[in-house]
Each structure stands twice: as structure tokens, then as C-alpha cells.
């Protein structure tokens, strides 16, 4: 007997919604005109639109990544000239960070799931929610217009004074990022207010699903950090166009001040990307281990802890900028504190799997990849936080490999896990499990094959962003490019079977994973106002799985 079928009979399992509710139209069928989608105020439709757009941006960013990897296949020029290469890696960074990593999970899954998990009919400000989507698209349009009309060669960090002197089109791309910042603030603000005011009766703060806790902590960072980025981007645009001199040493300005202000946002931004991933994984690990999450409060508070300490860690980007040894030491210790909070989460996830009845479906496969990327990427992060180790590794491929492991690896794993876990909830269809596992295996393997050679390259001294490199680095670069191709192939398979499932997939059961998450208390896909009939009651914790052993012996304590 498989573990999942023995659990299926557990007492208190979520009942399927009543038969007579089945005829209620889902949010997908309630209005089918283009206008009913583009002007919708329904958080679920907005979430789906976010999903479509972030997938498109992921494709654009991915194509840039492949161009960069192809160029680095040989030591000299391969397919593009040096300037095009500089523009390609800049746009890869800008698109992936501002248009995919930051909005992906909050925009698509946060929008869709947060109100469902709170038992609310919508987010607090539906119009602001739609505005947020269009701000993202407006900012993206301006940035992409800039990309087409010249592009930018500064790298996604826009370091001054180079970014204020380069002749490439800095202004539209930075202005686009500024507008995207507004979108991020609006989403964060909406989620904080929604969590505070829209919880259904019975959902106390300590009954919030862990995804909600993670979104809440993310939203706090978005609201507190993004305005500073907005200001610094405006300053760079002004400086580029009018030569204000605020970051220009020739006019008395200080380029290191730019780095302080920039990393004050952009270091917490790493947690804007990865905290939602932690939230998704807390849901997935409970659902597929069929166990209540181990250490619920520790996981919830560690999200807030990461959000808090994340604000005091920016200085580790400036270990080699001439800051004092004392400063470096302080920032090193503060950076390592992030590792403590992350370790709390990792141990609790492992504790959840321990003696759980693991149902090894695609989302759980991504959980395994996620755990590995988080620990590996996190440990290299602790190594980087050590100032003396940072000095030789600074601006080498070791950095590139590290932040791709933790930011991209962990977030992509969570994004794919969320996509598969919530696919039946969002679209009412099932994908093909076998292809799901094949694709997950290819993606995890491809990711390792891409970035482990880059760790080695960095350790051997290859600097990042360079167009040409000595012969001796070629073998590892070829390996990395081969890995990137495998990674792209894995995503291609996912795209094919998920699109196929959207059209031809078999009808999903209301709760195919027999999950105890609150979002499964309504139908799949949910009706327009989220619930039909009486609102569900929330008397138990959101991840309340009865221990199979204890359930058979009710008297045992």
C-alpha cells in the first residue's frame, strides 16, 4: 500500500465540496471577453495575468542568458562583439531580477493564494492590485524600449560613475526600473493591509499559513527598501542626463555613496526573491510529507528575522571598496546572522520530512532540489560573508555561481514547485506526473552542470563580466554552456506538457494532493468570489495533518 492511500482515510481529511456546488462558474469562465480579463479586479485573474507575463519575461531573460553562455564558449569572440555582450549580460540581469525574480512568486502565486488562504473574497485594494500589474508592464515597456534603442552596458548594478558617463541608453532603462519599483511597493502594501484586515473569523496570526507569513515578511521588505532604490535610480538618471555630480568624483561626489544606497535596497531585494520561495516550500513540504510543519512559529518568525537582518547586511558588497576593517567585521557578522535564520528554516523543513509519509510528486522533487540549492548557496554565502575570503573571490565567477545558486536556484525551484502544486487549483487541470519528474530532474541537473563549473572557474580566478578569457578556462566554460543548454531543455519540456495539460489535461479533483492548506477549502478552480455557500471554518492550524501512527491509536498520547 502506498503511503498516500493510507493517509487518504485519515480522520478529519478535507472533504470534497458538495456536489450541488459543482455548477457554479469558476473565475476562469465568469466572463470570457478580452476586456473582462484586462480590466478585471479579481485577484485570481490578476494572478494569472502576472503568471503569463513573468513567464514571458523569464523567456526573454533566459534567451539573453543563452546568448551570454554561447559567447563564452570560446576564449575569443564567438558570436557577438564585446559591446553586444556587455548589453546582453546587463539585460539578462535587469530582466531576470526586476521583471522575473522579484514579481514572480508574489505577483502570480501571492495574488492568487493570499486571499484564498485568508478566507477573503479579494485583496484589500483590488484596483491598486490591477494598477500594480500595469505599472510593472509599463515599466517593462519603457525598459525594453531602451533595450531595443541602444541597450545599456553597465551591468544590472548600474555602478557609478561608469553608469553616469556611458553613452548607452541608461535613462529609459533606469526609469523603467523606477516604475517597476512602484509596482513592487503597491503589491507589498496591498498584501500587508490584506493580511491585517481581511482574515476570516478564526484565522488568528498564528493560524496563518506559512506562505502568508513569508509573503508578509516579503511585503515589509518591499515597502521599506524599494523607495530608497527609487530615489537612487532617479539620482543616477539625473546625473546621467544633467551631470549633477552627486556620484561623480570629478565634481566632488562619491561613487561609494551610490553603492551604499543601491545595496541598501538590492541586498534586501535578495530576500524579496527568496522569502516567497521559502514560503512556497513550507506549504509544499507539509503537503507532500503529510505532516504538520515542524516548528511552525520558528519558521514564521525566521521569515521576519531574515527580513529584519537583511537590512543590515548591505555592507558586505563593499568589503573591497576601502571601508574600514571594523565596518567589514560588523557587516560580516550581520550577514552571517541571515544564515542563522535560514538554518532554522532548513532544519524545520528536514524535521517535517523526517518520519513523514513522503509522496514523491513533482513539487516534492523540486523541494529536494530547493533544499540542496539553499544549503549549498547559503553555505557559500557564509563563506562570502567572511571578509578575508571575499577579497580573493570578489567579482569572480565564484560570486556569479553563488548568487545563482541561492537566488535563482532556490527561487526557480520554488517557482516550479508552486506552479505544479497549485496548477490544479488555478486551472482545474492535471499535468502529466511522469513528464513533471523528468523535467524536474533535467532542470536540477542542468542547473548544477551550469553553475558548479562556474564555482571552479571563480576559484581559479576568472573574473565576472569579461568578454574574453585565457585558454585554460575554456573546458569549464564549455561545461557551463552545456549545462545551460540542458537547463533550457528542461524548461522547454515543462512548457510543453504544462501547455498541453491546460488544453487536454484531465479534470483535476478539487484537492488532488489531499492537502490541508486553507486554499484547498474551496473548489478548484475557485468561483469568482472564492467561496460558494457558507464560508469554511478555520478551527485547526493550516498544516494540520494527523500523525498516521497516532491516528490509529487514538488513546496514545
Amino acid at each position: 500500500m502506498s503511503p498516500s492511500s493510507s493517509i487518504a482515510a485519515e480522520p478529519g481529511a478535507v472533504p470534497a465540496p458538495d456536489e450541488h456546488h459543482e455548477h457554479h462558474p469558476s473565475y476562469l469562465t465568469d466572463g470570457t471577453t478580452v476586456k473582462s480579463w484586462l480590466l478585471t479586479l479579481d485577484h485570481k485573474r490578476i494572478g494569472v495575468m502576472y503568471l503569463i507575463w513573468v513567464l514571458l519575461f523569464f523567456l526573454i531573460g533566459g534567451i539573453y542568458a543563452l546568448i551570454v553562455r554561447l559567447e563564452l564558449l570560446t576564449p575569443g569572440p564567438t558570436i557577438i562583439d564585446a559591446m553586444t555582450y556587455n548589453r546582453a549580460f546587463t539585460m539578462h540581469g535587469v530582466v531576470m531580477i526586476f521583471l522575473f525574480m522579484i514579481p514572480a512568486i508574489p505577483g502570480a502565486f501571492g495574488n492568487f493564494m493570499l486571499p484564498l488562504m485568508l478566507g477573503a473574497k479579494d485583496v484589500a485594494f483590488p484596483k491598486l492590485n490591477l494598477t500594480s500589474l500595469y505599472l510593472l508592464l509599463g515599466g517593462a515597456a519603457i525598459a525594453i524600449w531602451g533595450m531595443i534603442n541602444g541597450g545599456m552596458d553597465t551591468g544590472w548594478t548600474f555602478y557609478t560613475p561608469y553608469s553616469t558617463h556611458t553613452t548607452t541608453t541608461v535613462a529609459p532603462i533606469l526609469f523603467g526600473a523606477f516604475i517597476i519599483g512602484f509596482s513592487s511597493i503597491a503589491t507589498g502594501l496591498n498584501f500587508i493591509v490584506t493580511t491585517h484586515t481581511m482574515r476570516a473569523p478564526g484565522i488568528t496570526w498564528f493560524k496563518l499559513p506559512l506562505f502568508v507569513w513569508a509573503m508578509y515578511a516579503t511585503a515589509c521588505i518591499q515597502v521599506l527598501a524599494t523607495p530608497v532604490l527609487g530615489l537612487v535610480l532617479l539620482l543616477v538618471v539625473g546625473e546621467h542626463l544633467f551631470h549633477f555630480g552627486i556620484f561623480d568624483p570629478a565634481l566632488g561626489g562619491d561613487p561609494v555613496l551610490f553603492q551604499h544606497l543601491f545595496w541598501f535596497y538590492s541586498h534586501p531585494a535578495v530576500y524579496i526573491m527568496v522569502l516567497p520561495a521559502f514560503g512556497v516550500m513550507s506549504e509544499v513540504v507539509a503537503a507532500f510529507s503529510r505532516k504538520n510543519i515542524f516548528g511552525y512559529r520558528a519558521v514564521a518568525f525566521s521569515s521576519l528575522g531574515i527580513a529584519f537582518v537583511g537590512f543590515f547586511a548591505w555592507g558586505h558588497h563593499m568589503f573591497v571598496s576601502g571601508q574600514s576593517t571594523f565596518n567589514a567585521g560588523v557587516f560580516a557578522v550581520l550577514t552571517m546572522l541571515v544564515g542563522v535564520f535560514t538554518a532554522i528554516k532548513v532544519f524545520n523543513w528536514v524535521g517535517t520530512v523526517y518520519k513523514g509519509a513522503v509522496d514523491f510528486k513533482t513539487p516534492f522533487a523540486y523541494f529536494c532540489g530547493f533544499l540542496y540549492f539553499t544549503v549549498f548557496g547559503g553555505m557559500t554565502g557564509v563563506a562570502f560573508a567572511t571578509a578575508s575570503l571575499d577579497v580573493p573571490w570578489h567579482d569572480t565567477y565564484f560570486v556569479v555561481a553563488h548568487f545563482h545558486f541561492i537566488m535563482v536556484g532556490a527561487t526557480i525551484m520554488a517557482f516550479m514547485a508552486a506552479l505544479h502544486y497549485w496548477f490544479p487549483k488555478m486551472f482545474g487541470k492535471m499535468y502529466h506526473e511522469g513528464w513533471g519528474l523528468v523535467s524536474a530532474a533535467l532542470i536540477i541537473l542542468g542547473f548544477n552542470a551550469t553553475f558548479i563549473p562556474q564555482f571552479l572557474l571563480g576559484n581559479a580566478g576568472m573574473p565576472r563580466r569579461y568578454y574574453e578569457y585565457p585558454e585554460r578556462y575554456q573546458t569549464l566554460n564549455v561545461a557551463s554552456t552545456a549545462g545551460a543548454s540542458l537547463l533550457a531543455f528542461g524548461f522547454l519540456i515543462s512548457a510543453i506538457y504544462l501547455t498541453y495539460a491546460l488544453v487536454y489535461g484531465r479534470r483535476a479533483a478539487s484537492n488532488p494532493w489531499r492537502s490541508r492548506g486553507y486554499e484547498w477549502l474551496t473548489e478548484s478552480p475557485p468561483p469568482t468570489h472564492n467561496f460558494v455557500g457558507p464560508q469554511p471554518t478555520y478551527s485547526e492550524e493550516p498544516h494540520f495533518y494527523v500523525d498516521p501512527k497516532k491516528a490509529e491509536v487514538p488513546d496514545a498520547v
Partner: protein
Amino acid sequence: MQSSSAVAGTAGAPPVPQVAAHFASLEVQNHAARLGMWLFLATEILLFAGLFVCYACYRFLFPDAFAAASRELNLLMGTINTLVLITSSFTAAMAVHYAKEAQNKKVVAMFVLTILMALGFLVIKYFEYAHKFHEGQLPGAYYRFEGIQLPGVSMYFTIYFLSTGLHAFHVIIGMAVLAWVTTKAMRNEFSYRNYTAVELGSMYWHLVDLVWIFLFPMLYLI
């Protein structure tokens, strides 16, 4: 549960406040609106905080130039502007008071006064700017002023124009917001049960005032 379809029967009575379908009650809706506004104001303060950080850094680097340059500002005009802005904040607060009493005509009067004072603030600012343009006290590479030739003095004017310019932009946004709330007051919409728009509009105006309360001593006095 509040019904949004119920219409007040008596002629001239303020309309019943609308409760959006996804809120449990009017109280929850108002609470959400206020919380959202407070968070938004926090982001605005953080936006200006970046400029304050720039000011602090460069004042530390160029203390003499900053002290000399700040004496070039017109203290009289700055003081008048401060008084104008504080008074406008008072009238905005009075608008909230009258909105609670459903005295919509007085709400309109108070907001019109506020907007006029905002306009006055911008006019005074225009004269200050015009004088500085004339003297060549301009940011960065455009600095032409002969009077002070200390290193870092152009940085002072960079920060002066950036921070007062960003503030003036907020004044203009605030005028638009208050004008929009005024049109609602003209339609006699506000009462004790429904004055959130007036309150939030005024809160935004207080922020504009508050930022100036920081800018004035930072740029003119010290």
C-alpha cells in the same frame, strides 16, 4: 452587513457610504484604507530619507562649503513659505473636522484655502529658483556663481534643487489629490460615517508639510 444598494431616502442627505463587496464591514474598509495610507506615507518618508543621507554625507565631507552656501538662501522667503505651509496643514486638518460634522460646504472652503496656499508656496519657490538661476547657483556642472569658490559647494546646490524639487513635485501631487477630494465634497458626500477620503487626503498633505519641516532647517538654518 452593510448593503451598498440602499439609497438614502431624504433629499439632500449625504449618500450612504459604499462598502466594497470584499470587505466585511465599513469599519474594516476604513481601517484598511488608513493602514494602507500610513504604509504609503512611510514609503514617501523613506524616499526623502535617501536625500537626507546624501545631505548628511556631503555636509560631513564639505562642512565649510555647505555652511557658506546655505547662507546664500533667502531666509525670509523660506520662513514665509514655512508659515504658509503650516497654515495650509491647519486648514486641511479643519476640513477633516468639518467632514465629520457633514458640513461639506466648509470642507470645500477649507480645501480651496489649502490649495491656494499651496499655490502661494509654489509661487514663492518660483521666485527663489529664478534668483538662483540668475546668479548661477546651480547643481553640479552648471554651477556659475562667483561668490563662493569652495570645493563641494555645487554639491550643496545639487541637493538643494533635488530635495526642494522633489518636494515641490509632491506639493503639485497633493494639490491634485485635494482638488479631487474637494469635488467629492461639492457632491455633499461626507458625513460622520464617511470621511475617509478627506482624512487620507489631509494625511498626504501633512506629509508634504512634514517633509518641508525637515528640509527648511536642513537647507536654510544650519
